[in-house]
């Protein structure tokens, strides 16, 4: 149609188009950035832990070929260890060997400086090794290394330092197998061990099991998957909650923004429709035109914005890595296309439906007509409570409703954003407080762990501030075998959730109960509480133990599982009847030791016993502990070392990773985890903060505009209201109810309802921190740990204050107008 442009102009809504573009861009960038965060996280992990995700250690050449040819292996690189580097104090500080060209391609080694070794006498070295060997940071420098080769001979050899690589070996959990800290081009001696590093396609579980089985076929070889190197499972619950939640909330906000902007144009659109109807257009045609035109408009707008956003995202993805030092991806385009399409579609359909319904309905004339009728009938109008409500109903104009929707939306959005930030921040703080820059060694077995010498070595390492250690028995049931126990990193109080058992004598019946047995060192802070009441010497001779029992009433279901019978029976009561001086029967494996209960402690500040499982803890001396578990010398099965914040972490990481080579002891470097968490939380704060501020501004501007429009129409009608008998006091009341009081109610409702619900959900999710199935009071008590209320509430309160200020300004204007009458 030649004159089609005239119709298009009639139905064009610039503000809706702008809002639509803004929403599409926002959604597009949200999903793009969220996915980029994932990519960034993965990239960071790969930077730290290498690009390969598995390794077979100490394998033969034949086995190596077999693994290399497996279908699931994408890339592989060989590492051969030829000798051990000996430090100044004659201790082993690293290994020397060679890698093949494919290994370099795996990017396990991040070359910080220099080049890979090209000649036989050239080496690249881990950064931490330089410090450990007290060598200067100078490429091309000659270095002398003491190397212990396979047959045990100690040789000294000169090399030229060609490059420095990042300290990678500390990130691999392969204590028994040496990794290279110094890499050279070629070695003459006999290889010590041969490792194969690889990246696998990880298509399915079966294929990986097959690969695992293949590797285990070989005699000494084993597969170790570096958990950090695996690509994160994007469909995990947490990922979906975090990313999906963020995307959904942004979508909801975008939809809300679109609806609000569209609603604000309704008056204009109704006017247009009325004009068109008066010009001879019938309603059916008008509806058809509305549908056609608006769909055409949003389709073009959506398409163009998507295209432009996609181009910008692609450019960012292409250049982001170099410019912003941030990995960006263009993977979520499909999600963005679909999400934005549906949001815009729903918005348009609802708007058209609304307009169809509203055609021919006027907004503000209701009150005018009402007043006119009153005046016409010469009815005396007394302004009282009933009429106030009557008037208030008629004042419920679109702008007021819109402002209320915006206010609710904004407070809701602020709540979601700030809750997200505050929870993450609190978790980060919790981790900083409880784990901090720490290294942890742990094992489930009471007979395994670090030795006293190893403990000493940790304590004397530069950069280590404090060390906590514990020997504890963790087994459940007197006649049962040793069971694995989840150790939960709660080492601020190390005496938590480790289980053993003791004989419970009640009514001449002996029953086994699960307890925790802890070796109490001489310097333990627990002695501060009990030293005055205990015969310490008798305790250290192994003749007595100190017991701490919970009252059964404090245990969640008021009962304790009996371990000596068929494991189903439970005892109930209010107190475990054990008193000072009574005999205890402690049983571990074949050992059954009778010991006197030196003291039953009612309360210890330092003890938090998991009330769900163990009703008590029994402290024993080193001698008794060794006797009970048949050990010559004590092993510390829970050790945590806290790093100094000013330490050189590369070196400390390296040294800590080399403390223990026993595979059964798990080593955790919490420092890296906390550092990663820190980066992520800052990124989150930055991004969500920007989104929140942006929306605050958009919403406030929109609300201010609404307020202005409303004010203008109020000005026109204020005379009318005055005639109806409204005075300044009523006017102020109306304002109070209309805006600030409403906002305050929304604020209280949103926070009052959401916080307990979210805490409950969060508490259930993070059973790592709290027991499951808590009562509401406990949910609130524990929930408080999970969120920072300052972060949660301050932005909301600031928004409310700004909104109140706007309302106050409007009120002043109206009051002035009222005074003139």
């Amino acid at each position, binding site marked *: *149609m*030649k*004159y089609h442009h*005239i*119709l298009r*102009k*009639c139905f*064009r809504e610039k503000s809706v188009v702008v809002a639509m573009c803004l929403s599409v861009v926002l959604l597009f960038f949200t999903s793009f950035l969220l996915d980029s965060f994932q990519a960034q996280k993965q990239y960071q992990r790969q930077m730290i832990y290498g690009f390969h995700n598995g390794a077979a250690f100490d394998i033969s050449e034949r086995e190596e070929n077999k693994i290399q040819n497996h279908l699931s292996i994408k890339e592989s690189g060989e590492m051969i260890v030829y000798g051990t580097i000996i430090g100044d104090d004659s201790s082993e500080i690293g290994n020397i060997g060679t890698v093949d060209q494919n290994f370099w391609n795996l990017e396990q080694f991040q070359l910080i400086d220099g080049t890979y070794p090209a000649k036989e006498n050239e080496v690249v070295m881990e950064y931490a090794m330089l410090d450990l060997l007290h060598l200067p940071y100078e490429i091309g420098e000659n270095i002398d290394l003491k190397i212990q080769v396979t047959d045990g001979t100690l040789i000294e050899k000169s090399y030229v330092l060609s490059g420095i690589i990042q300290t990678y070996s500390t990130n691999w959990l392969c204590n028994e197998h040496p990794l290279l800290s110094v890499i050279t081009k070629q070695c003459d001696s006999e290889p010590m061990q041969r490792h194969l590093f690889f990246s696998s396609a990880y298509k399915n579980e079966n294929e990986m099991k097959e690969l695992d089985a293949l590797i285990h076929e070989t005699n000494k070889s084993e597969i170790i998957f570096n958990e950090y190197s695996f690509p994160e499972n994007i469909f995990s619950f947490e990922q979906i909650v975090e990313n999906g939640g963020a995307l959904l909330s942004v979508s909801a906000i975008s939809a809300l923004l679109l609806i609000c902007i569209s609603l604000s144009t309704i008056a204009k659109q109704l*006017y*247009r429709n*009325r*004009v*068109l*109807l*008066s*010009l*001879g*257009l*019938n309603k*059916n*045609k008008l509806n058809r035109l509305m549908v056609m035109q608006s769909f055409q408009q949003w389709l073009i707008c959506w398409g163009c914005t998507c295209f432009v956003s996609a181009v910008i995202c692609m450019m960012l993805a292409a250049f982001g890595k170099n410019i912003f030092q941030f990995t960006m991806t263009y993977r979520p385009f499909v999600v963005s296309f679909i999400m934005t399409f549906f949001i815009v579609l729903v918005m348009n359909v609802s708007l058209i439906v609304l307009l169809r319904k509203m055609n021919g309905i006027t907004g503000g004339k209701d009150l005018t*007509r009402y007043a*006119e*009728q009153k005046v*016409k009938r010469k009815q005396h109008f007394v302004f009282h409570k009933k009429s106030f409500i009557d008037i208030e109903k008629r004042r419920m104009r679109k702008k007021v409703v819109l402002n209320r929707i915006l206010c609710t939306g904004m407070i809701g959005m602020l709540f979601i954003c700030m809750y997200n930030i505050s929870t993450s921040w609190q978790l980060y703080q919790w981790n900083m407080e409880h784990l901090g820059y720490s290294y942890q060694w742990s094992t489930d077995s009471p007979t395994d762990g670090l030795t006293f010498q190893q403990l000493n070595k940790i304590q004397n390492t530069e950069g280590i501030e404090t060390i906590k250690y514990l020997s504890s028995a963790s087994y459940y049931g007197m006649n049962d075998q040793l069971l694995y126990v989840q150790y939960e990193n709660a080492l601020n109080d190390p005496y938590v959730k480790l289980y053993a058992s003791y004989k419970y004598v009640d009514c001449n019946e002996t029953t086994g109960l699960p307890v925790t047995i802890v070796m109490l060192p001489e310097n333990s802070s627990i002695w501060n509480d009990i030293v005055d009441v205990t015969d310490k010497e008798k305790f250290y001779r192994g003749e007595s133990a100190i017991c701490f029992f919970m009252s059964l009433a404090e245990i969640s279901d008021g009962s304790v599982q009996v371990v000596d019978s068929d494991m189903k029976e439970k005892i109930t009561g209010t107190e475990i009847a054990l008193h000072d001086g009574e005999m205890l029967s402690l049983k571990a494996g074949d050992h059954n030791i009778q010991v006197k209960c030196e003291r039953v402690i009612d309360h210890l500040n330092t003890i938090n016993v998991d009330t769900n499982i163990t009703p008590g803890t029994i402290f024993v001396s080193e001698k008794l502990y060794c006797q009970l578990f048949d050990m010559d010398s004590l092993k510390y099965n829970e050790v945590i070392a806290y790093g100094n914040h000013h330490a050189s972490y590369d070196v400390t990481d390296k040294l800590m990773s080399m403390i223990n080579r026993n595979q059964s002891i798990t080593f955790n470097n919490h420092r890296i985890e906390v550092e990663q968490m820190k980066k992520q939380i800052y990124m989150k704060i930055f991004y969500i903060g920007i989104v929140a501020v942006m929306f605050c501004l958009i919403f406030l501007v929109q609300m201010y505009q609404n307020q202005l429009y409303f004010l203008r129409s109020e000005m026109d009608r204020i005379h009318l209201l005055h005639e109806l008998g409204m005075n300044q006091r009523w006017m102020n009341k109306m304002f109070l109810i209309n805006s600030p009081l409403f906002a305050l109610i929304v604020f209280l409702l949103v926070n009052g309802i959401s916080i307990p619900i979210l805490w409950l959900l969060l508490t259930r999710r993070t059973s790592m921190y709290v027991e499951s199935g808590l009562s509401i009071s406990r949910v609130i008590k524990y929930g408080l740990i999970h969120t920072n209320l300052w972060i949660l509430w301050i932005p909301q309160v600031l928004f409310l204050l700004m909104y109140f200020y706007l309302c106050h300004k409007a009120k002043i204007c109206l009051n002035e107008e009222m005074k003139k009458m």
Partner: protein
Amino acid sequence: MCALRCENIHKIYGKSQQATYAVRGISAEFQENTFYSVIGKSGSGKSTLIHLLSGLLKADRGEIFYDEQPLSTMNEQQLEHIKKKTGIVFQNYQLLPELTVRENILLPAVLLEEKCDEEWCDVILEKLQMTDIQSKYPDQLSGGQQQRCAIGRAFMNRPKYLFCDEPTGNLDKKTSKSVLNFLLEIKQLTKPTIILVTHDLDIARSADVVLHIEDGKLVSKSL
């Protein structure tokens, strides 16, 4: 010849106690090519009458006949046919702010999917002395110019019936006069039946027939 006729039409706003009787049983005949003016006080039902006659509102009781055909029995096509032959001018102009003067004038033809007679539009613009400002937007025009534009728009489909709801209500005396002159001048081209609602007696006197309404009733008719 009778072009338009209404018989005992009623219009009530609101319900029960709050009901307001806007039009109470008006009957009138409107001849072809005749200029009628409807006068009365504010709230007497003038605007409601013109809205009922133009089909913008439905009468609660009574009937309106276009060329002796009752409006209430017309189907969509017949109504559309009537709309094509009808032009309406409002007190508040009701121009679309997104469109230029020319586009506003062309709009009725575009909406009714008629072949747009650009030459006729040029004639209207010339008659209204708006050729120079045809590409301006309504918010760039004065009240008088906007009303002229609205008149031009009403004439675009060469209407047989032209309804004007206080077209000079928002204008001063001088501008009102000139707008009326434009209306009369352009009337000579299409010769429609004009029904004009006003409370200005001077303007009402320019009409061929003056109808006087009070409290929703037709009280007098003077030639």
